[in-house]
């Protein structure tokens, strides 16, 4: 079964991500804990959005739902015109491999593989030949400034270099959307700045849509738009409930 594709039309006009009345809760023992409640907003193509909020506000859960690694209880999420809430597990996996690039807080690189092999890994899911895979991986590493670290294992790289390797892995399949969960959370200020510069560059130069979860206001400042969550509700910067129409929320762009 193939992943449904977006309907033909003016792609630039339709949002990259359209979140419609999404609710999500977790069960802890006998108790049902609501994490997201009727959240709706959309993110335009090529936008760099930061999701902020206190711990437990539901921002990481929302990011997971957008990235298709968790399931909604109700509502729908359209990414590039595809309602990912209707996809089966295998369809979702295929969709993720083509459409989403992941940047994790703790990099999640494979420690036994070199930087080049780590970046090459997602290309195993493409029809590229081994040589093509290596060339693509080298190009991605060059893009993040790690051409001289191809054969280094993650343990031989600094935190910033590991995160850059993870970014190279995220972009190597050329996905439209990058999702980043606290990408600078484990880095010092200088390295964090370099990573944010890199992400901003990917957004500005390659037109990648970026959704980033962060606690760090400095990181959020680099985004075009900041959406804030509290107790599972989308709020505006005045603290009001922004669950209805995200586009009305003000941006915190500097």
């Amino acid at each position: 079964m193939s992943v449904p594709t977006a309907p033909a039309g003016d792609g630039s006009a339709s949002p990259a991500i359209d979140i419609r009345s999404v609710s999500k809760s977790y069960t802890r023992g006998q108790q049902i804990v609501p994490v997201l409640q009727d959240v709706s907003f959309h993110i335009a193509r090529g936008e760099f959005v930061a999701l902020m909020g206190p711990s437990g506000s539901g921002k990481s859960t929302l990011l997971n739902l957008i990235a298709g690694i968790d399931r909604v209880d109700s509502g729908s999420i359209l990414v590039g015109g595809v309602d990912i809430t209707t996809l089966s597990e295998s369809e979702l996996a295929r969709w993720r491999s083509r459409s989403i690039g992941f940047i994790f807080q703790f990099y999640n690189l494979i420690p036994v593989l070199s930087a080049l092999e780590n970046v090459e890994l997602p290309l195993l899911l493409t029809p590229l030949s081994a040589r093509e895979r290596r060339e693509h991986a080298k190009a991605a590493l060059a893009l993040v400034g790690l051409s001289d670290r191809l054969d280094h294992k993650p343990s031989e790289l600094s935190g910033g270099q590991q995160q850059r390797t993870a970014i190279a892995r995220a972009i190597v399949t050329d996905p439209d959307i990058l999702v980043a969960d606290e990408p600078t959370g484990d880095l010092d200020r200088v390295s964090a700045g370099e990573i944010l510069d890199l992400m901003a560059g990917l957004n500005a130069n390659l037109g990648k849509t970026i959704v980033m979860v962060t606690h760090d206001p400095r990181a959020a400042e680099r985004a075009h738009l900041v959406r804030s969550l509290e107790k599972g509700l989308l709020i505006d910067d005045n603290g009001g409930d922004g669950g209805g129409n995200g586009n009305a929320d003000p941006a915190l762009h500097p």
Partner: protein
Amino acid sequence: MLTLRFILKNLFRHKLRNSLTIVGIAVSVLSFGLLRTTVDAWYAGVEASSATRLVTRNSISLMFTLPVSYEERIRAVDGVTIVSRGNWFGGVYIDEKDFFPNFAVDARTYLTLYPEIQLNEDQKTAFLRDRKGCIIGVKLARRFGWKIGDPVTLKGTIYPGNWGMTVRGIYTGRDKGTDETQLMFHWDYLNETLKKSSPRRADQVGFFMIGVANADVAAITALAIDARFQNSLAETLTETEKAFQMGFVAMSGAIVAAIRIVSMLVIVIIMAVAANTMAMSARERLGEFAALKALGFGGGYLALLILGESMALASIGCALGCALTFPAASAFGSAVSQFFPIFQVSTLTVTLQGASALVVGLVAGIVPAWRAQRIGIAEALRRIA
């Protein structure tokens, strides 16, 4: 290739743990191989037996003898082509720990009936001419450094006295399964000596070895022989050589069964050890599996990684174990040659070693692989965070 590299690199991620598991698998495969070879050695006599040979003994037990006069009457039975006779001599050379099988046989008929006993013509002639001559297997000759012409004295346990004889021939086995640790001397030497020392024990035969025209008539011939001696003072029991040999194995059937069970247990134990190793490895990589699934890899790929690693672990251990089995069997076989004259690792044993390693690899990896497939990405990422 990248996936293969990934599997192999995973294999040596925890060098000490996985090396110990590999050593464990190798030792288990080796033990399994040696135990199976021991069982095979137990059955070596059965395997080496001929379908065209029958053995007739006293129906009460082997401890009881039959009159030598039976020989002519057996020869007259339809289907019988040749009859030889023999007695288990049970002589001891120097000390009981130097045990080896020794028989008094009717040399001429015995050598005709047992063509797998390969003796050159000169030695055969010398043996047949010398009533106090004997022939020995090549392994026995090697064990005691005996050469043609050497005198050998056996201390009789069943037939008291010192029995001097001369080595007239050193035989080799035509087949792999031929016992090359035996000593055979002339039945006439035994009988004539007994006539002088204990006449009541003379002219008595422990067993007759009978050749039949073909295997199809063996059962009928056996029945005919036994029918001939029914209601006599010494009734006979005639069976195929294979059944006769099986009778000896059956006496130690419980031991053989125990060895078989232990050989299986060894594999089950190492299966648990390997499964534990794989479960630990998979548990430690929960975050990696979650990340791989997030990247779009399906459960099948994770299963491939885990089962691949598990199979590689088992295969390396198996290869090592199989390679060690041959020198170990050779050394063990030499050490116990007086009990197991044939101690050879069979192709079936090596195949079973490989199959057991395959099962160990599969079983060890299957549960972690199943768990990895079911892993919730968000939940696993949250847990490692």
